[in-house]
């Protein structure tokens, strides 16, 4: 399957996976993560129950200190 991850097309094995699986595969281990799938924010408690499918637009944003 192909998804748009942070504005770039990326290919993954399989038909679907959860947000947590995506984070594992991409090795995103940060604390303050914001995930949007097709423009909608996914709540932290729903990373295991939210599925990413072929063609989805996923944004991963790591919030870090400084401002």
């Amino acid at each position, binding site marked *: 399957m192909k998804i748009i991850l942070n*504005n770039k097309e990326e290919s993954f094995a399989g038909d679907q996976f959860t947000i947590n699986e995506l984070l594992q595969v991409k090795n995103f281990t940060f604390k*303050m993560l914001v995930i949007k799938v097709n*423009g909608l924010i996914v709540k932290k408690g729903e990373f295991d129950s939210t599925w990413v499918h072929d063609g989805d637009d996923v944004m991963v944003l*790591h919030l*870090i200190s400084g401002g």
Partner: protein
Amino acid sequence: MENTTHIEFFSKFAAMTFEQIKQVLKTKTVGIAGCGGLGSNCAVALARVGVGRLVLADFDLVQEGNLNRQFYFYDQIGILKVAALKQNLFRINPDVRVNTFEIRLCESDIIEIYNQCDVIVEAFDKPEMKYMILDTVHKYMPEKYLVMGVGMAGWGDNNLIHSRQAGKLIICGDEINAVDTECPPLAPRVGVVAYMQANAVLEILLGANEQQIHSGI
């Protein structure tokens, strides 16, 4: 192909005189959430180009340690940042209208204070606060543009600093370098990101009006 791109790029900027730009911007309101390194410098840039109203919120006082990056002066140490910034903005542009809120922003404040703004600039230092405003705007004001600063500590690495957009969310910064004792925030990189945020704000405010200008409204 490259030539075409250049022409389009050029014509976008040639489309408005500064007088036309000011005519549009003076009708606009921009919210600035936090008046530290990002907020103070971004507000200055927006006041210089003639944004009509700035809505500032911060609970903190100016401290000596802020002066390595924030738009304050030595003789302003100890006064409220929102008050000091208002003074500085008036010295640059006496026509700018400034609303100040001396508060540590929470969800309900954000909705109340920034509801009337055309664009909101996120300029907090703590990631928890960045999350809070992102979540609040997304939940309660999804029609609003939010311009965030993420990653600007340290020095050098100009080319790591970028901006990207996801719907009405614009992110400016390197998205890598967090602040810590061995990677402090300093004027150059903080200033680059703050001005990048201001530039994104202009793109939103002027872009939305491009058609009006061309049709003479």
